[in-house]
């Protein structure tokens, strides 16, 4: 029986008196992928932040690899997260950014590792350029490399195809599929459903409630801008 990577129980989050998430119950097993569809401000990013332990739920719990997200310990380093912010230092080069994160996670051969991931996302020619000089799409690609480089067991990807051109969409799609193939669980968010060429459990989030998405025609992932 597959073990859950993430399980939320009656997860509720309010900002002031405004409820953003209402009793969300979601389970993603190891090696499985789930997609969360919702509009702007629907609570997608908030749910991802709570699962990562970056934000606290008002009520309920998110259990990540058996640990409560309110105080993640060892499970923290098993999470790879991509958000609307790139989490990259503008005054460091692409290579320096990845080497820094590799050192932070205690990864061996960090120079080679950083270059391998820069190659994997198609930024070889810009490896010594400062992130400040990158376009939004290039920064998103490097951010995906930062997320994947630690080989996380749980990927939390907030609109991973935002701002990407078709070539980059294909690269990122392949990286996500490869991660899931090695047993990683993934939770992706998007504004509209799209096809990732793998089995994906689709949910929609509206009025703070998460429910399975009814089947409808889907498009291939396209470049999208903004939240």
């Amino acid at each position, binding site marked *: 029986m597959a073990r859950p990577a993430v399980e939320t129980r009656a997860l509720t989050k309010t900002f002031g008196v405004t409820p953003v998430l209402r009793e969300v119950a979601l389970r993603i097993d190891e090696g499985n992928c789930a997609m969360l569809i919702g509009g702007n401000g629907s609570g997608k990013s908030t749910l991802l*932040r709570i699962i*990562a*332990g*970056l*934000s*606290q739920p008002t009520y309920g719990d998110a259990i990540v690899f058996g640990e409560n997200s309110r105080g993640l310990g060892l499970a*923290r*380093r098993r*999470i790879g*997260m991509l*958000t609307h*912010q*790139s*989490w*990259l*230092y*503008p*005054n*460091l080069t692409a290579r*320096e950014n990845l080497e*820094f*994160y590799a*050192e*932070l*996670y*205690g990864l061996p051969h960090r120079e080679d590792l950083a270059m391998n991931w820069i190659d994997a996302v198609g930024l070889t020619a810009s490896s010594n350029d400062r992130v400040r000089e990158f376009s939004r799409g290039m920064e998103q690609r490097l951010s995906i490399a*930062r997320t994947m480089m630690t080989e996380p067991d749980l990927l939390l990807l907030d609109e991973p195809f935002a701002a990407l051109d078709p070539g980059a969409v294909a690269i990122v799609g392949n990286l996500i599929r490869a991660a899931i193939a090695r047993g990683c669980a993934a939770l992706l968010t998007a504004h509209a459903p799209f096809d990732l060429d793998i089995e994906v459990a689709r949910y929609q989030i509206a009025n703070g409630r998460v429910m399975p998405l009814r089947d409808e025609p889907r498009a291939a992932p396209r470049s999208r801008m903004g939240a």
Partner: protein
Amino acid sequence: MAAFAAVLRKDLRVEIRSGQSTIALFALSLLIMVVLVFALSPQPADRARDGAAALWVALVFAGMLGATRSMIAENENGCIRALTLSPIDPAALYGAKLTAAFAFMAIVEVAAVVLITLFFNLDFGADLVRLAPSLMLGTLGFAALATLLAAISSRTRAGDLLLPILAIPLFIPAIIAGVKSSEAALSGFPLAAASQWLGILVAFDVLFVTVGALLFEHVIRED
């Protein structure tokens, strides 16, 4: 320890590359010295007292600017969230940020001491060496406090205004001890004459570093 070194090395690299904090801190110190030397027009008998006061005014304002810059860099692009999610111990992260802030302030202080010696017509010599303990202790305490408070203020809209409002009242006892011990050093008194004030600085250092290491995790975490 490797993560501590990684964050410290990254902060130093970013600063050396941009030079923003150090240049701004030096310019601010120079401005403060110029204003104070003309405002006070120190007489020979008052030079040590006025020089010590000017030095600490420069230290406090430069320290606030330096700590704020360091935390703003972490909040840019949300990098502080990545550090929160990473395996680094929050106390080690605080230690790295504190060490970086201390290093930037120490560099500026060396320049400030040279400026103060020139502007206040003090002697280059043993008096300046005796100044080192109070300056180092004061810098450590203020860097510890400012790093913690900058982590709070950098997340708010009016953070630049909030930091001095929070930091200066908390640091006033240490400022008094620092000014008094610096005045004793610049007056040519032996180190033992300022031991009482240096003891107070040590106590504040222990307090601010301990509180900072304990609270930093809660300060950088979202609600």
